[in-house]
């Protein structure tokens, strides 16, 4: 589904990713862990197409296509979704309207007719209830006046309405208390199926108690330095990152 080969990325002339390789198959959940500044968020941003990053070498192939050649909205059309670490507040733009515009943008990209208003509302209502979001938040401007936890839940809510093929979760667990974490993880788990893949970027293994990954990678100095099973995350929790970094150095 997703194949990253030898990816090199710079910001303002400063190399951040230096030869990253990653293969994510359909239906798999991959966790990307690593110390601060290792390039985890850069990877998430580059996959979604955030401006400001310069890819100097390497390829990213998604469902056989060159992902890097696509605009952010085209990537969404292909099925890529990024849950932001810091969701953006958009004054004056109604949450549900934004979501409908997004869904219809994706549908148009795929040559499908716009969604029926009744069907859309039914879908929104069901997902709202499943994520324990207050209905009042739906008609508010996007993320404006939301608490930190509400913003993260709103990201997962958007994801569950848009039903992406590849969801990249950028530190979705940061700033969440344990109840919110459980709700967010439940939202992700409900979407897990044989066709949908997840890249879960996190600093802490705590999230992985709830979203159990198939593969765990450790990212440091812009490269994947170790890949293992779920047990690797537990080991990192117990021992920290230093032993790994020293072993590589």
């Amino acid at each position, binding site marked *: 589904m997703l194949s990253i080969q030898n990816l090199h990325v710079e910001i303002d002339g400063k190399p951040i990713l230096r030869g990253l390789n990653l293969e994510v198959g359909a239906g798999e959940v991959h966790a990307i862990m690593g110390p601060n500044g290792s390039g985890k968020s850069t990877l998430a941003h580059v996959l979604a197409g955030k401006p400001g990053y310069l890819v100097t070498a390497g390829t990213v192939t998604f469902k056989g296509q060159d992902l890097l050649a696509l605009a*952010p909205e085209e990537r969404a059309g292909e099925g890529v979704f*990024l849950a932001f670490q810091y969701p953006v507040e958009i004054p004056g733009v109604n949450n549900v309207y934004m979501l409908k515009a997004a869904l219809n943008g994706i549908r148009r990209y795929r040559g499908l007719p716009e969604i029926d208003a009744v069907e859309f509302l039914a879908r929104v209502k069901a997902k709202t209830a499943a994520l324990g979001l207050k209905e009042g938040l739906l*008609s508010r401007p996007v993320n404006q006046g939301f608490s930190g936890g509400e913003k993260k839940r709103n990201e997962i809510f958007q994801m569950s309405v848009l039903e992406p093929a590849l969801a990249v979760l950028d530190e979705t667990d940061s700033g969440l208390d344990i109840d919110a974490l459980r709700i967010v993880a439940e939202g992700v788990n409900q979407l897990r199926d044989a066709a949908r893949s997840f890249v879960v970027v996190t600093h802490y293994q705590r999230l992985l108690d709830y979203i159990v990954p198939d593969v765990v990678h450790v990212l440091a100095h812009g490269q994947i330095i170790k890949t293992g099973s779920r047990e690797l995350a537990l080991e990192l929790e117990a021992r920290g990152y230093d032993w790994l970094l020293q072993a590589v150095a």
Partner: protein
Amino acid sequence: MGILQTLAREFAPDPAAPLADLRARAFAHARQRGVPTPRDEAWKYTDLQGHLEGDYLVNAGPKRGAPSAVPLLDATPYRLVFIDDTLAPDLAAPALPPGVRLRTLAAVLAEDPASLRALMARHAGEDANFFTALNMACARVGVVIELAAGCQLTTPLLIAFLHTGEAEQHFSAPLVIVNAGPNSQLTLIELHHGDAAATNLSTPLTDLTAGAGSIIEHYRLQLEGAGAVHIGSVQATIERDARVGSHSFAFGSKLARVEICAKLAAPGAAVVLNGLFSVGAGQHIDHQTRIDHQAPHTTSVELYKGLAAGDGRGVFRGQVIVQPHAQKISARQASHNLLLSPFAEIDTKPELEIYADDVTCAHGATVGQLDDAALFYLCSRGIPAAEAHALLTFGFTQEVVEQVSFEPLRRLLAARLTGSADIPLPERIEPAS
């Protein structure tokens, strides 16, 4: 040839005509003042040079074209429509409820010209500016609206001035007079609309008097044609415990300027100035507002938002004056502007003159650009870049648009701002009473 020369040629008041003395005096005053130039502080950012040079037709008589699709006509049962300065009886409203008296200016000039003397003397007095004096000298088209004490008309009354491309280069000076009696209520929509090909020069004047305890909601919608010049004025006098909501929406014309003055004349008077302008390539739109707190315990709340694309230019100047004895007043002003192109320009200038010491005043002015992080956020959700731009621009204007209580007008504004009529409108904010 320019407007003054044209008028000097055409302007020969019949000494027997009503108000001929005042007309002549107003015209002399306008000539003496002359066309304003950027040397005049109030015209610093708006240069009329080259914009009033047409060989204008003045009082061209009953020749009117057929206007293209005009918004709001279907949504307003009460209306009076002028097409190329000619009353369109076929588009007129049904009878208004008792207590509302609506007469054309022509009828008032014929039947009761003396009733206009005080108003004319006021607007063509020594300190009158060029364009209000010009309006006083020339106005033949317009309406006089009077509300009896306690009369409430909350269904909007539409007064429309439409300009077609078929007319030759027209000069028109519409006059709208509103007298709201004590505790009355009126919602008025003043529409200035031009077809794409219209090249008229319009200098409308609106005079609002809000009697004690009355409420006037005034929506001014400027949708003139791309070749038009529009220089308008709204003068409101607000009496004890009365409230005026002035909403100015300006989208059209190549050069437009609106001056909105609110005099808070007695304690308890309140004004809300709400405005939105959007300029595109080749356009210049200037708003000048002046709030005069003449009495203690008066309130003003002002919010203007501006959008500029292409090489469009926007201007906002907001004067707030607090007279020495006007203690315990509250004045809030905000001007927020968005540049949508590197070639666009918006100049915003708050001017507060406060001569009382126990007052609450706040003001803020910003000029910014669309937020890249928000654009990326929307695009990452699958919204195409152009639509994301439109959505953010619309979001920026929401604070102004949501203050419009008349839904068809809110829809019209939303559609203009997004290019789509399919926008769920936010819940309306009820004005504080």
